[in-house]
């Protein structure tokens, strides 16, 4: 079953934020095993969601494009644009 674009983006937003926050915590607590385990849980969710997003709705970075016919990176919407 194909996930909706919105649902995948929600997973990416939540997992990425978990990683961002743990990243800062781990910088000042590099030996905290519990935080490191949590990091890996979020990393798995993010990696899976990023792959599914790229395959179904296009890349979120210019390193991940799978385009062969035309370069879809240029397509709207950009993240700052209002979307109903």
């Amino acid at each position: 079953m194909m996930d909706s674009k919105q649902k995948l983006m929600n997973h990416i937003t939540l997992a990425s934020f978990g990683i961002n926050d743990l990243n800062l915590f781990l910088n000042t607590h590099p030996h905290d095993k519990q935080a490191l385990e949590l990091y890996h849980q979020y990393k798995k969710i993010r990696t899976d969601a990023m792959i599914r997003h790229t395959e179904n709705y296009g890349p979120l970075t210019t390193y991940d494009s799978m385009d062969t016919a035309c370069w879809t990176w240029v397509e709207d919407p950009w993240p700052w644009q209002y979307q109903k």
Partner: protein
Amino acid sequence: MWTYEKRLQYPVKIARPNPKLAKVIISQFGGPDGELAAANRYLSQRYTSPYEEVTATLNDIGTEELNHMEIVSAIVHQLTREMSMEEIKTSGFDAYFVDHTAGVYPASAAGVPWTAAYIGVKGDIITDLTEDLAAEQKARTTYDNILRLSDDPDVNDVIRFLREREVVHFQRFGEALRLTTDRLNSKNYYAFNPSFDK
């Protein structure tokens, strides 16, 4: 280097344009305690950081501030979409409009252009981290003031996220300062400058 991800760290979806509110919120883009200042402050300070946890903290909080700069700019952009000339005149947005139309320009709410004079890079890690602690609190106060001025739930939801990140960054910089002083002579933290003296 940095890689752009085509998404916001926290989504911005403002249903009602409001140029009057945009004029206030733009301060957290290009004002004295805004996100542009924050990113440049930490990313410039990191080069002379003497301890690796502190270097990583400056690098990664500086990077998160770039995300926040984009979020604040997105709020301003969405608040100023589809403005009528009448709205521009009556909302007080005309003073901004005459120079920037609906472009997003880094300036304070009072219209002062962004300047590097807003940031300090002293090349002494205790001094730099102490500035950073103050900077996070000043940004937190500014977000508190925005919450006093705004009654738009779409805006306030995002502002509360940004405000919370200031509190988290303050905590992390406090830990970085403790990690720094733990490595220094507790009888005289200032005996030498670990960012410069060998």
